[in-house]
């Protein structure tokens, strides 16, 4: 029983991590219909930024997060203006272009930083015990960060002027342009916000993972599965599917091993997507 509780709690922690790492992808896919294959490489970039700012320059951890977000945001602007904006509405070209970007990022990281693993220290090392359940305090902080980012993103999209522009551009681009809104600027902001979130997530997960050039690969399957299951343009769908995926992976891997768990969950995701092609919690709003 206590083992199950432990599995559930650690599953909840990893759900929050998965949520954090997939949010940027959901934003870009949901509001721009662009699949950003470079997303997971931005996690890697964020993790490296965290390593050099927090571990190397000894700045506070929050500063590392902020710098990672800002740097990825700026990089997002650059990429969108230079490359992505030419391929809107062309699926294959977008996939190829973003894959090329991810390849370039990964190889550059390999050339610049080498093959060695880098380790980022935990900002807090305390471990809380509730009865027989252990939680590392950093995991709690991560969960907090991820919920905070979710809420802030929700507010940004739904309550601010900019968010309103983003939503209207998604719903009706021509009409939005007629109202005098610069939709190209909106696209750039949306894309770079998604990239920024990826960088932030990368910096946040740096302490719990080994920072190396291939960090992105290990997240590829999970984040994309999560987005497929949660449904695009639905933040809370992503929250729900993160919890479902990671809780089931955690519980099943407690019973057998983690790869079997991932395979079972993948099969379940395929079946679920068959039953609900639009994703679990797609909003019912009319397009």
């Amino acid at each position, binding site marked *: 029983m206590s083992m199950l509780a432990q599995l559930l709690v650690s599953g909840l922690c990893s759900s929050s991590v998965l949520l954090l790492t997939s949010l940027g992808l959901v934003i870009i*896919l949901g509001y721009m*219909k662009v*699949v950003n294959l470079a997303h997971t490489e931005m996690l890697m970039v964020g993790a490296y930024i965290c390593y050099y700012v927090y571990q190397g320059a000894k700045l506070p951890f929050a500063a590392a997060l902020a710098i990672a977000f800002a740097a990825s945001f700026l990089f997002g602007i650059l990429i969108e203006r230079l*490359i992505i904006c*030419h*391929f809107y509405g*062309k*699926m*294959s*070209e977008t*996939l*190829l*272009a973003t*894959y*090329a*970007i991810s*390849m*370039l990022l*990964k*190889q*550059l990281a*390999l*050339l610049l930083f080498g093959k060695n693993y880098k380790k980022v220290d935990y900002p807090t090392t305390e471990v809380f015990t509730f009865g027989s359940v252990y939680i590392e305090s950093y995991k709690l902080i991560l969960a907090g960060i991820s919920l905070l980012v979710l809420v802030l993103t929700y507010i940004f999209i739904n309550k601010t002027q900019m968010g309103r522009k983003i939503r209207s551009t998604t719903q009706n681009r021509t009409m939005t342009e007629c109202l005098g809104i610069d939709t190209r600027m909106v696209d750039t902001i949306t894309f770079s916000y998604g990239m920024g979130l990826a960088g932030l997530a990368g910096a946040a997960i740096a302490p719990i993972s080994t920072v190396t050039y291939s960090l992105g*690969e290990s997240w*590829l*399957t999970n984040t*994309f*599965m999560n*987005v*497929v299951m949660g449904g695009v343009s639905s933040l809370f769908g992503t929250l729900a599917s993160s919890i479902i995926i990671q809780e089931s992976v955690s519980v099943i891997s407690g019973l057998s*091993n983690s*790869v*079997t768990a*991932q*395979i079972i969950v*993948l099969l379940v*995701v*395929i*079946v679920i*997507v*068959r*039953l609900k*092609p639009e994703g679990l919690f797609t909003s019912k709003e009319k397009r």
Partner: protein
Amino acid sequence: MMDMIKKIPINKYIDFALFLFLATFPFYQKTYWIYVMSGIMAYIIFALSLDLLWGYTGLMSMGHSVLFGAGGYMIGISCAYINHAGWVRFDRLPWFLALLSSETGAFFMALLLPAVIALFIGIFMFSGKIQGVFFSLITLAVAGIAELFVVNQSTYTHGDSGITITSRTILSNSETSRLTDFQFYFVILAILLAVYLFCVLLMHSRTGKVLKAIRENEGRLTFFGYKPAAFKLFIFVISGMMAGLSGVLFVRVQGSINYTAIGINLATLVLVWVAVGGRGSLTGAMVGTIILQVAETVLSSAFSGVSADFAQYWKLALGAVILVIVFVIPKGIIGTIIEARQKHRDRMRKERIRQKEEVRYHV
């Protein structure tokens, strides 16, 4: 007669030249290049199978290597079992791999397993009207999981190290019967030619036209009373079997298989070959594969003395190549040639019509 020859599209000439080149290639090359080219030809079959799916039907599978690797691993496991490789710890194959104990059984399984995987994925995706990008994402996830799975199931797949096999024949798995590089080259060339002709026939048949219609406008095809899902499933299974076949040949040539043959790396690499060559034409898939693979081999031997990490720079260059391709010639090399030729013809026709009309006015 001349008209007939003129009507043959330009890519058929390129195909003919290509096969002529491949057929004469081993007569003036060293054994090393024959070996390299055999591997490339196995990859060409793989690229053709993706081209049927992506170029013709418009289904961008980002996990096609799963089907390639599934075929290859069946042969690998079979060889390891029959030849009692050192790492084999099991005495009997489990029931789902029982066919692998016979030679023809292994070959059969190598075609069947990819077909079954494709069928399973296809049934769920196509009947559920999962389209476009979601198909790509799910196949990508499948490739990621397959890589983990193969490394994890080390009892049968020898984990990270992969399987080494020594038999180089079509069917036989014993270590003694072994064709030379030269002989095996022509075996693969014959299979490649057969696969190519099959693709040409398939794409010129009614089915092929329906497949292209799916790419162009699936909704309208549904209104005509076709069931796109059934056609997509059909081509996915066919393409899966071709990928499995290429996996078999590749394992035989290479003499080994490991987890990279089933994972995301190869899956995306084959997309790059097809994209560079030009999707939607068989020539494009073949030319793209040859150009990139030959370039990699030549450059890596040229730079082997300069830098030990050639593979890193090659991948960097490949990333840049993809960007250039999608920006400058999004249709790929062959696609652009075909298009230019088409434009030229249209201009010539307009010119002729104008001349005729001028003559008529003067009279």
